[in-house]
């Protein structure tokens, strides 16, 4: 069992508040990812769950029990550190078996269980090596082995893949998912990389400046960001935000005109009144229009990045350039006039404070 | 041709260098009082000899002074003219080749003709003279006349050693203060022999240490008697043992306890009247001529008592002196009445020249003048090469007594073992 609930959890260092009342619920067996830019408090939150940092205010419950003052080793939580924190003077076997050794588990029992874990993590040939003689991926697996030998109900990962190269990361992601499946433990995983978050998580918690911006599953976050921060943080390239005005609401159609003068008609949204808004369009919701097709946006290119199977086109907006991600290869020198069609159903409207405005039914 | 040129160039250069140095003779001196005494007469010696003199300061404690001198002499550097604390060390220096034979210069000086016979006797070994005697150290017992009289303890000359120890015990009983100090132990350095052991040995049943063939008779009755006397002092608790085991053993008993009346009798030299407790002291005893009296050293069997006389800091010329002739000239000039008077004033020793007594300077030293009469009873103990080792061995033997690690026989054994170990069995009788 490993259901985690954070109730208005706060953390201050000196007078400085770094976690400003976080409410989070993670169901047993979920793979949850804390994501956010550096300094958002995600690692601090993780360390509070681990018990390595005191909780300044609020409650942390594990399976309904308040854990605020329970010491780390009694929480039945394991943690994999960013730099792995392997004990450099111990062999792989000793590293993995350390927690059992501390509990005075019989030597034979330790050996058996370490053997099992090593088998699972393909570490058997390295059991007698010291960490300094291992590759990055192997060290990572030792750190994981050290965590799962305790059979914890919750495993915490603090940016575990940041020290690995790109190819290895993809492989380790798969291994982590397999690990999640086979242990059934609740996993909380901290990263600043939204791709990692999207590919791994059952549930993503987006954090900014010590506050939870939004909690949802990956596709929910992508489709229905609750604010401009989440909207721009999730997805790559990031969502375009155009300053705009609601020009008219006529029946089922709302006409919005961007400050650059482009008129865009959207399905009516409850509660939307005339006035300034921000129009959010993901780059992949823009398409290049053929000369005979209708198009909302007429502009010129600033730059085009050709990736072969698709092209990222930066275009003039009067302010910060917009970006469109279109399929196929297009050679468009800087200053080429282009026309872009908008998918009205994929547009997001935010008020001037950055909060999403959308129909209750949606 | 080239070689010849080089050689003459070097010769010229060294000749030049010698000339530069020739006008300066460096004299080693230590302890502020002695340096002051020397500085007072340096201009006079320079005028007399036409040679510049540089006084170089050396470390204060005798042991460190000698160590530094030896290290420098060994390396062929060091001062041109220097002194040694007592005649005990001279023979070890001359046999090591550190000293220049100055027989002609000393005998040719007018100082020699006016010297007390005992000074001449001490300066000359087998017809050779290495030193210009300047001062004589006269050692005996000094006691607090005022304190003993008030306590009703006799101040008469003790007849023998038993009388002396009984007097000390009586004084301790009546006053509650430590009553008798004689230097013992290793840390007092040469003083353990010169200011203590020697005094008793010269008045023991066998008053010499050196045999006719130059070996040391350390198993003699006299040596045993001295250690036995020490043992009695320690057992009777008349001697303050603690300070004697510290690194500067003389400081507390001599400069603090004796002036305060917390120590009643001690061996000392004439300088105590000037330097330790007199006008040159930091802690002077008021009315010292009446407050402090002297006893000669009694004889073990009650024979005539005596005082111990020794050459004090006689001057000598280093064999590695830059200009030996100039140094000899300076040495000859250092036998002057003025120099002896200056040292008498500052350090309280007695001039070795009889005619120095008549000088106004010496006559002002009222505490010293009466002591001169006792010079007739002066005795000394002969020394031989290796004597420094014997002195160190005596320090070790007496230290064992102080610590209660050995009795008199044990202390004597330590002395014998130490000397045989260092000098070889054949040097010990």
């Amino acid at each position, binding site marked *: 069992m490993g259901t985690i609930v954070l109730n208005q959890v706060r953390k201050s260092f000196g007078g400085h508040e770094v976690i400003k009342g976080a409410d989070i619920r993670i169901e047993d067996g979920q793979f949850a990812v804390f994501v956010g830019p550096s300094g958002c408090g995600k690692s601090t939150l993780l360390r509070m769950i681990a018990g390595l940092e005191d909780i300044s205010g609020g409650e942390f419950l594990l399976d309904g029990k308040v854990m605020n003052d329970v010491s780390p*080793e009694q929480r039945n939580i394991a943690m994999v550190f960013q730099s792995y924190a392997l004990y450099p003077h111990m062999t792989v076997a000793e590293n993995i078996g*350390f927690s059992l050794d501390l509990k005075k588990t019989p030597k034979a029992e330790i050996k058996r269980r370490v053997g099992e874990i090593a088998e699972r993590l393909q570490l058997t040939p390295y059991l007698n090596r010291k960490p300094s003689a291992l590759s990055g991926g192997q060290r990572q697996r030792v750190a994981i082995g050290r965590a799962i030998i305790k059979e914890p109900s919750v495993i915490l990962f603090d940016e575990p893949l940041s020290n690995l190269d790109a190819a290895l990361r993809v492989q380790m992601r798969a291994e982590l998912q397999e690990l999640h499946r086979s242990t059934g433990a609740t996993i909380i995983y901290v990263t600043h990389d939204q791709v990692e978050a999207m590919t791994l998580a059952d549930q993503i918690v987006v954090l900014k400046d010590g506050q939870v911006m939004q909690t949802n599953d990956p596709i929910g976050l992508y489709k229905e960001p609750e604010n401009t921060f989440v909207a721009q943080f999730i997805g790559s390239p990031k969502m375009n935000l155009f300053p705009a005005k609601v020009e008219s609401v006529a029946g089922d159609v709302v006409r919005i005109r961007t400050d650059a003068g482009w008129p865009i008609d959207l399905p009516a949204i409850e509660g939307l009144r005339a006035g300034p808004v921000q129009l959010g369009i993901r780059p992949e919701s823009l398409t290049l229009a053929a000369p005979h097709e209708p198009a909302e946006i007429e502009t010129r290119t600033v730059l085009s990045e050709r990736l072969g199977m698709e092209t990222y086109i930066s275009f003039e907006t009067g302010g910060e350039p917009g970006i469109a991600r279109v399929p196929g290869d297009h050679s468009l020198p800087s200053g080429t006039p282009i026309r872009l069609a908008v998918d009205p159903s994929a547009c997001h409207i935010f008020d001037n404070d950055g909060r999403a405005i959308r129909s209750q039914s949606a | 041709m080239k070689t010849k040129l080089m050689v003459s160039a070097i010769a010229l250069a060294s000749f030049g260098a010698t000339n530069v140095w020739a006008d300066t003779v460096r004299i080693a001196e230590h302890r502020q009082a002695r340096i002051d005494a020397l500085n007072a007469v340096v201009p006079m010696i320079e005028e007399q000899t036409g040679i510049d003199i540089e006084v170089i300061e050396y470390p204060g404690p005798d042991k460190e002074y000698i160590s530094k001198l030896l290290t420098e002499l060994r390396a062929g550097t060091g001062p041109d003219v220097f002194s040694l604390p007592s005649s005990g*060390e001279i023979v070890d220096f001359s046999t*090591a080749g550190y000293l220049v034979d100055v027989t002609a210069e000393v005998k040719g000086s007018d100082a020699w003709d006016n010297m007390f016979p005992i000074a001449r006797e001490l300066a000359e070994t087998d017809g050779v003279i290495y030193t210009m005697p300047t001062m004589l150290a006269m050692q005996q017992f000094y006691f607090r006349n005022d304190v003993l009289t008030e306590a009703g303890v006799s101040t008469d000359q003790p007849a023998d050693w038993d009388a002396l120890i009984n007097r000390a015990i009586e004084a301790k009983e009546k006053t509650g203060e430590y009553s008798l100090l004689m230097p013992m132990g290793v840390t007092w350095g040469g003083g353990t022999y010169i200011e203590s052991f020697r005094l008793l040995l010269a008045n023991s049943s066998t008053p010499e240490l050196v045999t006719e063939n130059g070996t040391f008779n350390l198993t003699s009755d006299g040596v045993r008697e001295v250690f036995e006397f020490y043992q009695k002092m320690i057992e009777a608790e008349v001697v303050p043992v603690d300070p004697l*085991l510290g690194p500067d053993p003389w400081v507390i008993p001599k400069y603090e306890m004796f002036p305060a009346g917390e120590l009643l009798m001690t061996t000392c030299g004439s300088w105590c009247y000037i330097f330790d407790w007199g006008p040159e002291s930091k802690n002077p005893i008021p009315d010292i001529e009446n407050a402090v009296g002297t006893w000669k050293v009694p004889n073990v069997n009650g024979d005539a008592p005596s005082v111990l006389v020794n050459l004090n800091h006689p001057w000598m010329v280093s064999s590695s002196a830059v200009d030996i002739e100039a140094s000899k000239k300076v040495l000859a000039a250092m036998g002057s009445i003025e120099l002896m008077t200056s040292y008498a004033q500052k350090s309280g020793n007695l001039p070795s020249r009889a005619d120095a007594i008549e000088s106004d300077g010496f006559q002002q030293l009222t505490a010293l003048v009466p002591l001169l009469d006792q010079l007739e009873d002066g005795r000394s103990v002969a020394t031989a090469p290796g004597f*420094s080792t014997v002195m160190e061995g005596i320090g070790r033997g007496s230290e064992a007594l102080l610590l209660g690690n050995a009795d008199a026989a044990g202390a004597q054994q330590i002395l014998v073992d130490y000397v045989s170990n*260092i000098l070889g069995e054949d040097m010990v009788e």
Partner: protein
Amino acid sequence: MLVLPSAILLFAFVLYPSGVAIYTSMTNLSLTGPAALNPRFIGFDNYTKLFSDHTFWRSLVITFWFVLFSAIIGQLVLGLLSAILLKRQFALRPFFNAIILMPNAVPGVVAALMWSSMLASGEYGTLNKIVAWFGVDPQRWLVTFPLSMIIVVNIWRGIGFAMILMNSGLSAISEELYEAARMDGATTWQAFRKITLPLLVPTIFLYLLVSTVTTIAIFALIYALTRGGPAGATEIVGIYIYNQSFGSYQLGYGSAIAVVLLIFSLIIGTFYVRALKVEV
């Protein structure tokens, strides 16, 4: 060619003096007397004498206790303890730091002078004044417990150095290791024994190498406090060499002891260096 300057320095300051010492040790050279003027070559006589010289063996034993208790046990344990305690932040930390480091900055002779007034016998001694408060009679500290006192003074002097070294060793251990150990269920003591100590081993060996060799060579501190006495109770080998060479003036014999001491130091040094390589 590149090694020439260091080769010259090595020769001038290490090999040549060692050679002179070894040669001197095979003569009866003395500072005084006839053997100063004409020293004789006597082969290994000094060494055979040395092996039956019980004072020499006693001084080796004293040196062993002195090094063991002052450097290896006292300074190391207390230095490590202070390094651990002073790693935490607290109000008086700079003050304690200074107190521990100060003795290290004091020259040996000055430290000895301070302590000789501290440990003086009789009621004048500072320590005696202090213990009098607790109703203890005045003690003859440097006479009754000479070696222990010298050890205490040397510990007092050396904690700072040990602390600095241990401190650098400790700060090389990542804080994450302790967090990992906490997560693994280690108590503070278990973390110290299973993480801190094993990871400090190289630092500890380095410290032992330096401190053993320097402690054997200590001179000024002991000479100024006791001159090796009373009755040789504090005569560590360095003092014995001095006493033989400059107290008894036996330079040849003193050199022989010095050569033996040099060999001992080399053996100890090699042992530590080997141990250092094996570990981690």
